[in-house]
């Protein structure tokens, strides 16, 4: 993918450490406007960290992260918050405010950032809830929602301010097949209908590949594969093959490094 005005998020030479552990080591990435881009990789490779870096919640050790041309890691607090109003994020847990019901959760960003009258807020909230199929659940509390419903409410909240981009953190984890199907459909439909740009962090290969325009596969701090879903399915890279096909052994070994098995057993 080439860097151009078409690019909404541009990452260059990203280096990020957590303690002594290097999470990203020179990552370059371009997210095209209007696309659904997947970032995939095994658990613990820093996919969620990458979303936090893009959202400005973490600062890189080295490198540049440009979102809509703005360097998120160098923005003042005020400008960062202005940028965040144009970014929605769907957290793995939904992150709904537990003391507010569904309606108030979706209304929350509207009440915080707009001076709209109550009647208009009501209309907007009902439209957003209708888009995710939960208009009828508006008076339920978060504790009364299933995991899939909570994520749909969080999705309605994420699109409340009509953002330019939505970041999805593991949207399919722990979902039953129906909820997963609903979320898969919603991510693609909302992206196309609202003209969004979506970044989906996931390790659910089939579901994510089915809705993505472009995929980055990361491991051990580097991008080990990238391309369209079809290109990745046909790649010869053993690492990407192992990941895409879900093979138990390969470049990522089945066994955690350990001393010789026989010697270990015979040691008393």
């Amino acid at each position, binding site marked *: 993918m080439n860097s151009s005005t078409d690019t909404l998020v541009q990452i260059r030479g990203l280096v990020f450490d957590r303690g002594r552990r290097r999470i990203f080591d020179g990552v370059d990435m371009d997210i095209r406007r209007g696309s659904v881009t997947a970032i995939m990789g095994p658990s613990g490779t820093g996919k969620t960290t990458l979303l936090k870096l893009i959202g400005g919640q973490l600062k890189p050790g080295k490198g540049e992260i440009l979102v809509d041309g703005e360097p998120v890691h160098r923005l003042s607090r005020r400008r960062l918050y*202005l940028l965040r109003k144009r*970014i929605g994020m769907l*957290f793995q847990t939904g*992150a709904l*405010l537990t003391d507010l019901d569904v309606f108030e959760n979706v209304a929350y960003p509207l009440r915080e950032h707009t001076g709209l009258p109550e009647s208009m807020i009501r209309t907007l909230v009902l439209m957003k809830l209708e888009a995710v199929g939960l208009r009828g659940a508006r008076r339920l509390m978060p504790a009364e929602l299933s995991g899939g419903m909570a994520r749909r409410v969080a999705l309605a909240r994420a699109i409340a301010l009509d953002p330019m981009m939505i970041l999805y953190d593991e949207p399919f984890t722990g979902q039953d097949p129906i909820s997963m199907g609903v979320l898969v459909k919603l991510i693609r439909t909302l992206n196309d209908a609202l003209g969004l740009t979506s970044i989906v962090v996931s390790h659910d290969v089939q579901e994510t590949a089915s809705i993505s325009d472009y995929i980055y596969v990361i491991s051990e701090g580097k991008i080990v594969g990238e391309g369209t879903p079809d290109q990745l399915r046909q790649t010869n890279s053993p690492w990407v093959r192992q990941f895409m096909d879900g093979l138990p052994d390969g470049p990522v070994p089945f066994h955690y490094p350990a001393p010789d098995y026989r010697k270990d057993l015979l040691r008393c």
Partner: protein
Amino acid sequence: MLNVLWRLGAFSLGAFAKLGRANLFLLQALAGSAEIIVRPGLLIRQLYMVGVLSILLISLSGFFVGMVLGLQGYNVLSDFGAEESLGVMVAASLVRELGPVVTALLFSGRAGSALTAEIGLMKATEQLSGMEMMAVDPMRRIITPRLYAGILAMPLLSALFTYIGIQGGYLVGVPLLGVDEGSFWSQMQATIDFREDIVNGVIKSMVFGVIVTWIAVFEGYDCVPTSEGVSRATTHSVVYSAFAVLGSDFVLTALMFGE
């Protein structure tokens, strides 16, 4: 030996780093003070949560502490034929010491632990991160109102504790043990000084309010976002508050009443 030194160094560095974070945290929370003027509803709701909901506990505890003071005071004073001074003893103990200190300890157990657990769980369930990503500063929306609510509620609860404690002492001393009612109240009025006793007691409870609420909200905000981390932070909140209240009580007492 080297290992012990290393552990000591690591512990000291960790403790100083945490102290530094706590101070920065307090400054950030105070920097958002304008928020409670713009949105007074946030403060009123928290005053209800930490203050009003603590009234029953504080009232009952104050009543029992006052009754015990009345009983114990009568036993000691009657040996010297000075049971008429029971009112002074009960009031001075409550106004100067027990009111602010016991209220602070009870407050940290009821409201402080609840604040830590609430904020810790909000962190563990990514609600604070969610607010940040919605361009809402959790420091101003969540922390600042709770901090001010604790600081405002503590002197009021302490005053309530003291008032009910004196009534408890009266109930045991006058109707039950037969201390003269006139002496009970008049000696109290004559001896308890407004500036020396009451103002100092209010200052103490305000200082304890800052300490307990600061520790409670900081422990919640700084906790490891797991169930174990929230549990540990809640324990720390109560334990650190108790140490800090009792330690600072000695310092304040020495400054206020020391010769």
